[in-house]
């Protein structure tokens, strides 16, 4: 009991004193997760909207593939990226394994299906309301994709924030493709896993605090955004 209390105190000292090792890990985590959220959104948003309104061959296959990715355990996604990037793999010559880029690739692969699934739902609902009016105005299905994405921009931004939260909290896949190399690919989640297993509770707890804070801020931002958009646009 006392030990945990002492660890909490030490953790608070690290956060409070903006410990450089801690700060570096937090900054890298946020940077990579943001990049993964943006990349995942760049793939997931148009894909979700296209599947929502599109009538193209292979639409069903895309839906099945997205659902499969959504249901895949993240360590398996990590393993797939590892195999792609490993020296013998198809992208082995890029030399990306155990780099921050590899982490972003794995995280994006986790984020994109989430964003696509939520965007698809959102755009399908909007399309139900808009289809007749937009068709009457002469809007084609292809032209409707950017229109729906823009019209649903506030709820989609919430979706992207959810994707960011997912990327920031991923452990397994990031450990596999990043390797948790100190100063290079060590992020909050992998550091927590490592420090806890080494018995260094203060750093793990300090990172835990920060991670909780990040998740809280992201959710508060999503909530605030939704409230604001409802007030402004109905």
């Amino acid at each position, binding site marked *: 009991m006392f030990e945990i209390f002492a660890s909490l105190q030490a953790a608070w000292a690290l956060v409070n004193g903006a410990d450089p090792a801690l700060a570096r890990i937090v900054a890298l985590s946020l940077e990579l997760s943001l990049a993964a959220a943006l990349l995942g959104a760049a793939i997931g948003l148009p894909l979700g909207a296209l599947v929502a309104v599109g009538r193209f061959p292979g639409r069903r296959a895309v839906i099945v593939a997205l659902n499969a990715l959504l249901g895949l355990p993240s360590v398996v996604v990590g393993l797939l990226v590892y195999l792609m990037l490993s020296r013998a793999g198809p992208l082995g010559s890029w030399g990306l394994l155990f780099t921050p880029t590899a982490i972003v690739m794995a995280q994006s692969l986790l984020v994109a299906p989430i964003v696509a699934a939520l965007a698809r739902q959102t755009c399908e609902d909007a399309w139900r*309301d808009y289809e*007749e*009016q937009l068709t009457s*105005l*002469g*809007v084609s299905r292809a032209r409707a994709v950017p*229109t729906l994405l*823009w019209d649903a921009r506030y709820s989609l931004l919430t979706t992207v924030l959810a994707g960011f939260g997912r990327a920031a909290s991923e452990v397994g896949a990031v450990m596999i493709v990043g390797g948790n190399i100190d100063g290079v690919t060590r992020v909050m989640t992998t550091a927590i896993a490592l420090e806890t297993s080494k018995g260094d509770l203060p750093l793990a707890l300090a990172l835990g605090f920060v991670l909780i804070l990040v998740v809280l801020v992201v959710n508060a931002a999503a909530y605030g955004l939704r409230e604001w958009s409802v007030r402004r*646009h*109905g």
Partner: protein
Amino acid sequence: MVESPPLLAARDLTVVLGGVKALDGLSLDLMAGRRTVILGANGAGKSVLLRTLHGLIAPSAGTLSWARPHRQAMVFQRPVMLRRSAIDNVTYALSVNGIPAKERAARAASALERVGLAPIAERPARALSGGEQQRLALARAWALKPEILFLDEPTASLDPGASAEVERVISAIADEGTRIVMTTHHLGQARRLADEIVFLHAGRTVERTPVADFFRQPASKEASLFLKGELPWT
């Protein structure tokens, strides 16, 4: 004097929706330069007819032939507005219809002016009242300079004041030479706006009569029952 061919000739239109024959071999010619109000009991097929003429529903049998290339627009009972400003809703429709970017702003502004919405052009469209949104829908349609404008119960969800404003705008659009084809459940409105009445019953045209004659003495038994309030209608 020989009359020019009809702007739109509909022949033997049949539309089946959910196993119901919503239109049952309906024929109708629309000459240029008139204002037609379609009346009929609830479920007679008025809305389905307008949507079919406008091209939103494909008939399962029969033909639609237009005399020449033309622009058309439709205003629905409940307009759908995009999450952007009132004027941007109009410029969006112009952009979709290939109006050059440098003409759009002026054309949209003048359409808003004519429906009395110029002072609130920058307000979010969805925050406008029902009557304002319907006038915005009329401005959006008007800005496209349609040769023919379909309106399906455009005042059905509005209070009397807002209805009167919408009626005034419809008259102004007709006076500028747009062919009006509308439905209403307001007999007073039909009397004020129509040149001729087309009366539908069970998916067919039962009669077509100049407006004064129709309200004095309709030609069909169904229409007399309807005017006596003995047919159910919305």
